[in-house]
């Protein structure tokens, strides 16, 4: 019942906002939705499996660039989307195969390195990506998303599209968390050796989580590029990946509600405050995030909305 009310509110509230002409809040809501897909996706790797991924935006970039390139060629979104997901998943799988053997902090650095390589490739390979100037090129256009006779053009329509995909993301993530694989992931996070001895196929389960989470990154990228109609390598820097990790750390790693809270705090609140507090505030934003990240990891490492299991794990040493 609680969930149904929340869902109804999510569906009706933007209509009221749109009616009264609050377009900015609607735009922010869409942005929050995109970040929620990214964060819930990243949570599968960072939260459930406990693998720190510092290059996640690379997969958002793969989704976004694939969608942009194909849709400039005139392909429909409903054809490009599966291509984006498969390509994102495939590249993620190929990277994961060697990388997932590494220990925690080395894995983090290697994902960072891959993320930067993707950004540099997007930046330097002009023939494919148009380099720093981004896509689409002058004279080209990313085609609209069409569903039967409806074409998605304004923020309200995209809000519902994003909401739909976010709900799918949440459903898949929730089902995963409470599945055999989800429990296997948590077992690996808490003690890889014990998990292996319990008969869990560790490389396979890790790889599955890694690939699935990358596909959500590609999904968010593909929708985003159709919505905004433009991409450049600037949007996928290391600091964007770090921002996602910060959202998970602050919200609560390993918990879907925590991931959503992290997005609301780090994207929703600052964007809504932007017109009130002015651009000066926006400049101080990252400074404050950095500080909050340090304070949270020291005093409340499980985040503000922790999953019970993760909190117990992190405080096990206090006993």
């Amino acid at each position, binding site marked *: 019942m609680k969930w149904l009310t929340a869902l109804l509110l999510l569906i009706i509230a933007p209509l009221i906002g749109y009616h009264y002409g609050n377009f900015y809040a609607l735009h922010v809501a869409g942005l929050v939705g995109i970040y929620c897909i990214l964060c819930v996706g990243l949570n599968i790797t960072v939260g459930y499996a*406990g693998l*720190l991924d*510092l290059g996640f935006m690379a997969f958002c970039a793969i989704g976004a660039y694939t969608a942009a390139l194909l849709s400039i060629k005139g392909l429909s979104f409903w054809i490009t989307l599966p291509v984006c997901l498969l390509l994102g998943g495939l590249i993620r799988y190929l990277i994961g195969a*060697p*990388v997932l*053997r*590494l*220990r*925690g*902090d*080395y894995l*983090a*650095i*290697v994902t*960072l*390195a*891959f993320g*930067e*390589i993707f950004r*540099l*490739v997007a930046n*330097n390979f002009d023939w494919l990506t148009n380099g720093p100037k981004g896509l689409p090129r002058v004279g080209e256009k990313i085609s609209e998303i069409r569903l039967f006779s409806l074409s998605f053009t304004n923020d309200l329509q995209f809000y519902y599209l994003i909401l739909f995909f976010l709900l799918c993301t949440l459903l898949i993530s929730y089902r995963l968390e409470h599945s055999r694989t989800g429990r296997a992931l948590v077992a690996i996070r808490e003690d890889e*050796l014990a998990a292996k001895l319990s008969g869990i196929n560790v490389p396979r389960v890790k790889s599955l989580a890694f690939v699935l989470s990358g596909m959500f990154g590609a999904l968010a990228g593909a929708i985003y590029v159709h919505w905004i109609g433009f991409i450049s390598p600037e949007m996928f820097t*290391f*600091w964007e990946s*770090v921002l996602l*990790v*910060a959202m998970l*750390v602050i919200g609560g790693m390993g918990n879907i509600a925590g991931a959503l809270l992290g997005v609301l705090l780090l994207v929703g609140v600052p964007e809504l405050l932007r017109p009130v507090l002015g651009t000066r505030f926006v*400049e*101080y934003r*990252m*400074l404050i*995030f*950095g*500080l*909050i*990240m*340090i304070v949270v*990891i*020291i005093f409340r*490492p499980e985040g503000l909305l922790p999953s019970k299991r993760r909190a117990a794990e*992190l405080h096990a*040493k206090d006993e």
Partner: protein
Amino acid sequence: MFIEQVINGLTLGSIYALFALGYTMVYGILRMINFAHSEIFMVGAYIGFWVLSSLPVFLPGFLPAYFLAVFILAMLGAGLLAVVVERIAYKPLRHASRLAPLISAIGVSIFLQNLIMLTAGASSRPYPEKLPLEQFNFFGAQVSSLQIFIFGLAVLLMFILTLFISRTRLGKAMRATAENHIVAQLMGINVNTVISLTFIIGGGLGGIAGVLNGLYYGSVKYNMGFLPGIKAFTAAVLGGIGNLKGAMAGGFILGIVEAFAAGYISSENKDIFAFVILILVLLFKPAGLFGEEVPEKI
């Protein structure tokens, strides 16, 4: 062309090697990747920038003393900052999970970068040119006095550091702490002091590397630490992280690889090579070229 690239590589390598020592020393003692080290480098470069642009050279004869002052101030400032960061952001996490200090270090990195961006401006600033520049001919290649200076200073500092670690009591204490904290403590070593000392020395060398980087490229910017930081970390891993001589060798190797990649293959894609080396070393030889193979403890 060949000799020129070797010279460029050695200059770059000197900066990377000094920078890499901070990563490797901290990893040796605490087994953590000090992600904020690249910001210590950046702050060192800014201290040099502020001193150089506010303090005039009074007499031409005083130039060596003047530069000595610049480097000492940058070293002290960067070293102290590194210790403060350690006390605030890493010490409370010494017994936490392995990823906690890394996340905290990333938080520090974001904080320091944005602090400098907000106070010193978001655009890049030209580095004051107070060192007289001369070009020499070396087997048909051009060498600048600045390149010789960078190489000479880096080698001198590395020599002093090696002597310090191998010959002094404090150096011995550092080696003992790197080996085993608890046993070192039982032998009467104050582990906290040794850790602070590690951060002072590593941070100080990073600060000097920052000033040299500023002098060499002629500019400073708030995000200047990130890419060289990854490269210096790569150098440390390449040499075997935790191994001082490895970090020095790794720095020079990486500098030369980068110079050749830029000169012969593609200057636009030179940064990609550093990342590829980082990935390959971590995947196939995580102990590095000179490190010991340490079996994973269970």
